[in-house]
């Protein structure tokens, strides 16, 4: 049983990690992340990079939907804007990768501010529908501004170079994608130790009360859209470098729904939820495939079990929502509490 984690200062109370045990676990995590590329094969490295990109985008959406209470279905459009910006800069000007990613984030951020304007008048489902417009407009721009975007054929992105190293494999990209995602996560976690983050939460809990308390809704709602879109833009940029081919159809509406599902399954309004949700949504279909592959069912197993696997994945999401509406983050917390209080029951 854990005892004696009394806080003696406000700084200690607001700390991201409040005990030595937690710091030890962070150390284990960092060591695992550093060791992973040397022990994993190309397939697991690919999945690790994909998960990291999805975590970055899910974190952005969680800032907006989970923390500020503004439902958005425009996440894929912002990712697309980031991806196209990065691709265009890389192809035409060959500018450095980090600068391109930053530019991708900024372009998406500006678009996010514009798309966020209706959030001042509408909420909930109405806002979700309004943000779908972002996807429609972005798709139109990607398809029809062919001189810039390559039209329906899209763009092939040359590999990025960092310090003379050509990032043309999952192993090399891992060393850029994962640190950027970690930075984005730390940034988001720290945001909620500031006035801005607390204002977002106040708006989510009751926007009228927040305004009465002196939080300007216009500024903070747009700021939430801006930060969320910036995250999506950077994630989109990483997507462009990772897949190295983008078309207007790389960023469909279903992708936005995927990220919204990741936020809900992971746990709205928690950083851990963003991570767990993105990991769950990305890896569970793959893990189910592995399980099906291990079953001694012969050659026709894929034909028979593929639809079953899809149904199981859907069922898992539904069951999570029914039995744990606070998401995987809450499941994680309960497990932690069990260990903290052991041998007593919660």
């Amino acid at each position, binding site marked *: 049983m854990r005892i004696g984690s009394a806080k003696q200062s406000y700084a200690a109370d607001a700390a991201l990690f409040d005990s030595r*045990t937690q710091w*030890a*676990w962070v150390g*284990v995590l960092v*060591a*695992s992340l550093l*060791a*992973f590329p040397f*022990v*994993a*094969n*190309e*397939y*697991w*490295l*690919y*999945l690790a990079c*994909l998960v990291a990109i999805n975590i970055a985008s899910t974190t952005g959406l969680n800032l907006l939907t989970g923390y500020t209470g503004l439902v958005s279905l425009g996440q894929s459009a912002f990712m697309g804007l980031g991806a196209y910006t990065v691709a265009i800069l890389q192809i035409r000007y060959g500018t450095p990768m980090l600068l391109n990613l930053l530019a991708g984030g900024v372009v998406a951020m500006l678009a996010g501010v514009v798309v966020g304007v209706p959030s001042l008048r509408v909420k909930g489902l109405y806002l979700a529908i309004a943000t779908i417009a972002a996807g429609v407009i972005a798709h139109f721009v990607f*398809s029809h501004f062919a001189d810039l975007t390559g*039209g*329906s*054929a*899209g763009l*092939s992105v040359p*590999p990025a170079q960092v310090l003379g190293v050509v990032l*043309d*494999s*999952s192993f090399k990209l891992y060393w850029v994608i994962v640190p950027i995602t970690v930075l984005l996560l730390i940034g988001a976690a720290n945001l909620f130790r500031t006035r801005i983050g607390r204002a977002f939460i106040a708006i989510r809990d009751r926007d009228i009360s927040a305004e009465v308390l002196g939080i300007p809704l216009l500024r903070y709602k747009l700021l939430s859209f801006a930060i969320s879109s910036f995250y999506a833009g950077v994630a989109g940029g990483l997507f462009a470098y990772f*897949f*190295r*081919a983008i*078309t*207007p*159809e*790389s960023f469909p509406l279903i992708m936005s729904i995927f990220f919204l599902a990741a936020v809900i399954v992971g746990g709205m309004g928690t950083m851990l939820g963003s991570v767990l949700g993105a990991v769950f949504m990305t890896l569970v*279909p*793959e893990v189910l*495939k592995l399980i099906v592959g291990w079953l001694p069912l012969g*050659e026709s197993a*894929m*034909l028979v079990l*593929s*639809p079953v*696997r*899809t149904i199981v994945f859907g069922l898992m999401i539904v069951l999570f929502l029914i039995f744990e509406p606070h998401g995987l983050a809450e499941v994680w917390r309960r497990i932690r509490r069990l*260990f903290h209080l*052991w041998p007593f029951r919660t």
Partner: protein
Amino acid sequence: MTMKKRTFMAATAATLASLSSPLLAQAQKKAAAKGAPAEDIVFGASMPMTGVFAFAGIAIDAGIKDYLSILNESGGVEGRKVKYVPEDTAYKVDQSMAAFKKITSQNKVNLYYADSTGFCKAVNPELERHGGILMTGASFAKEISNAQKYPHQFMVGPDYSEMVAILLQYIAKTKPGAKVALVYSDTEFGRDPVEAFRADTQKLGLKIATEIVTPPGSVDVSAEVIKLRRADPDYAIFHGYISAPIPEFINQARGVGMKTQFMGTFWTMDNSTVMRMGPNADGFMGVMPYRYYYDTEGKSPMLEKIRKMRPEYQATGYMQGFLAAMLLTEAARRTLAAGNELNGKNMKIALSSIRNFDTGGIIGVPLSIKGNSIPIGRVYKADFKQQKMVPASDWINLTQ
């Protein structure tokens, strides 16, 4: 020395975390070594067994399996068996890539089937880096037919522009100077042949009646039908759809008395897809690069074998998968017969050396391969009385 439960759990978890990945990788390597002996040729596939393209994926998968089983029973490729390793992708590019990475990290893959244009594009740099794989797939996008840009890929048939060109050649021959409309979906798939359509109509002395673009997944096409009626084309070519909204278009057009001849491209042309369009689609035409399952004209030993193996109708996707496996393994056979290393470059050279190749009746004429596409096709017409697609033209080879 005693250890607290929490400390023990932490230590165990940390050890497991650090050990699980290498163990997993080792287990996969062992599985690969066990499952695919070095002498086997490995045929990987990112196959859409679920999702919107599952109807085609299941048929393609069956076609590949059947051809490889015929091939392996007759001794394989230069004495080497071909091992088929498919993975479901749900027709999503990220999952297709994951399948590719998984299959290639567990097997020494030589041949590969790709499920979509998006995946063909995304995997292209990886193919060049890998160097050991020859790939074909379900994409007929014009861009993939660029052999310089996609040196390790090819398509099993004409690209979409060439499909439309085959239809236009047929139209120009049947009704010179005819008015032709193009109806396409506002997708990458739909927009693919638009420019070629414009150029080819002009070249063949045909007139463009109108071009109509429909939003992806549109159902109500009343406004588009009015536009089509105003243009009153002799022929209207649909592209970028599997079925909907084609039946709606045809029903509404027939309802207002239009006599236009409607046409489609490969993915619309499966027998069951056309027959489900309803009686107004009787006479619906389209381009087909392969013969239908039930075609009996001429000598077609492979089709007969297929009919023996599978007495029930097999979709056109099956023929595509069957021919894909035939051509990929033929490229491997020629490479090995020449004593060359089995890699993407050598296999592509071997593939390009194919001249007057007899597909056993899968395509009605001998084929020669030059470049990334095979611009051969035939126009078929729906006969609702027989519930079959019947030939409306001879085989049209755009290279001749």
